[in-house]
């Protein structure tokens, strides 16, 4: 091949070159981006990567972008936080939070996938781009389209959180609200991609889009000093991210940039939408789709497109999948905020809460290195926890009033004690 990457059928292996398509026209199975790793070994250099600015484009040789590609923005490069206080609370030693709640520009890991998808959209000559979205993806498509001059049209379930709708509208994107859940929206988008010549980032550009997730994994390894962790806990909606972090780690081993070691992959879902964790826990050959009912709307995909691959990755790694209830999600959001000063969205609550459950069950060891992937920002899902924080009593702007308030609060505390 003239380029080091092209589309390949995940099931029958047929090669398709590079084109805006997501499934094999021979056997209708999903396509992925496959690389010529022998060629990559010659052109990709660790020292080149480390000499560049710390954002996702420093790994551009490992991404499906043209050789002449100029980074249009500064997506990624998020902190890997050594979460000492959270670790202590959970009774483990080496816990890290990969914090994509502060990913540029729209505060979720979806900025990474949109970055590679729009590079593909540019290459294939699309002017209009779009997506089906539970919110974060719509934010990312709208923001980066505005910056790069694409027309954006996003499709969302009608009942999405107002903040996520606003965070898309502000960039001037056209928003189409659909009466239905994400799975209805996704099905409609598959039909739209079939009919219109649009670049739908998670439909006909999906193989390119999904590759952007690998940078979350590359960064984890690099920030651990070019070492792989023992465990990774990943939130699962469509199930793609967990498979792409695994792919990223395999590629780094293949390139000789990290030492090979077993990494266990753990998937996290909300019990109200847990087709993948249910499939893993019941050892099903195929997951059973569900009707989502959870506050973790960014994970509310009842028919996850990559669910079967996520299950395979988890099983193959010796990991596990777990799910937690909505009240547990709220508690975990608070736990992360109060211990590490990180305000994650509901999906972050899912991941932290599941991590707690995995530690309690002994599936994640106390002395192992564990990375918890936080993929979105709590400022977008304040509705989910607003009732936990009723307004406190207001006082007069006088010192006596403050002293009286302190006294009454002290009295209340000692009464409780």
């Amino acid at each position, binding site marked *: 091949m003239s380029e080091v990457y092209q589309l390949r059928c*995940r*099931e029958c292996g047929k090669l398709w070159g590079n084109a805006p398509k*997501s*499934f094999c*026209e021979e*056997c*209708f*199975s*999903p*396509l*992925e981006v*496959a690389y010529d790793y022998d060629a990559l070994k010659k052109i990709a250099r660790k020292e080149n990567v480390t000499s560049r600015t710390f954002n996702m484009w420093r790994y551009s040789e490992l991404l499906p972008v043209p050789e002449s590609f100029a980074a249009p923005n500064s997506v990624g490069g998020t902190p890997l936080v050594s979460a000492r206080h959270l670790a202590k609370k959970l009774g483990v030693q080496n816990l890290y939070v990969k914090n994509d709640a502060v990913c540029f520009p729209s505060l979720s890991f979806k900025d990474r996938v949109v970055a590679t998808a729009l590079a593909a959209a540019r290459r294939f000559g699309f002017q209009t781009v779009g997506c089906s979205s539970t919110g974060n993806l719509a934010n990312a498509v709208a923001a980066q389209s505005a910056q790069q001059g694409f027309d954006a049209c996003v499709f969302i379930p009608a009942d999405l959180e107002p903040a996520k709708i606003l965070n898309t509208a502000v960039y001037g994107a056209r928003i189409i609200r659909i009466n*239905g859940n994400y*799975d*209805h929206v*996704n*099905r409609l988008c*598959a*039909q739209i991609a*079939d009919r219109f010549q649009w670049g739908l980032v*998670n*439909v006909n550009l*999906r*193989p390119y*889009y*999904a590759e952007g997730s690998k940078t979350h994994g590359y960064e984890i390894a690099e920030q651990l000093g070019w070492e792989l962790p023992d465990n990774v806990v990943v939130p699962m909606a*469509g199930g*793609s991210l967990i*498979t*792409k972090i*695994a*792919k990223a780690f*395999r*590629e780094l081993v293949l390139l000789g940039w990290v030492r090979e070691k077993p990494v266990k992959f753990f998937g996290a879902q909300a019990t109200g939408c847990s087709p993948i964790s249910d499939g893993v826990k019941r050892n099903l050959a*195929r997951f*059973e*789709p569900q*009707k989502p009912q959870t506050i973790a709307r960014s994970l509310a995909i009842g*028919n996850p*497109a*990559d669910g*079967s*691959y996520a299950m395979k*990755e988890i099983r193959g790694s010796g990991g596990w999948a777990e799910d937690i209830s909505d009240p547990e999600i709220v508690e975990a959001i608070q736990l992360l905020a109060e211990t590490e000063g990180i305000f994650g969205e509901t999906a972050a609550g899912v991941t932290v809460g599941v991590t707690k459950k995995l530690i309690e069950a002994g599936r994640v060891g106390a002395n192992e290195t564990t990375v918890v992937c936080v993929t979105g920002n709590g400022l977008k899902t304040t509705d989910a926890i607003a009732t936990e924080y009723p307004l406190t009593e207001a006082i007069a702007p006088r010192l006596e009033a403050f002293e009286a308030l302190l006294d009454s609060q002290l009295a209340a505390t000692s009464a409780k004690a």
Partner: protein
Amino acid sequence: MAITIEIPTAFRKFTDGTPKYSCSATTVAEALNVLTSQFPSLGKHVRDDQGQIRQFLNVYLNEEDIRFLGGESCEVKDGDRVLLVPSIAGGAN
């Protein structure tokens, strides 16, 4: 029962370009069987070697995924629409 099966573009090379196929059937399974008898080369793309609907093909009866309706044995009524939509997955290496 007279129903219509909507066929995505990628499948139409097996259906002589037909985008919609009308037939008579009492269940979704029967409708799919009528379709694949009419267009035999489509058959292996709809069902796997075990005769199950392929993992990456989603089948809808009107607005609903047939997996929520008890699977392909679900009954159809006059005027129903059956949609075939390839599942969109990214895959991993």
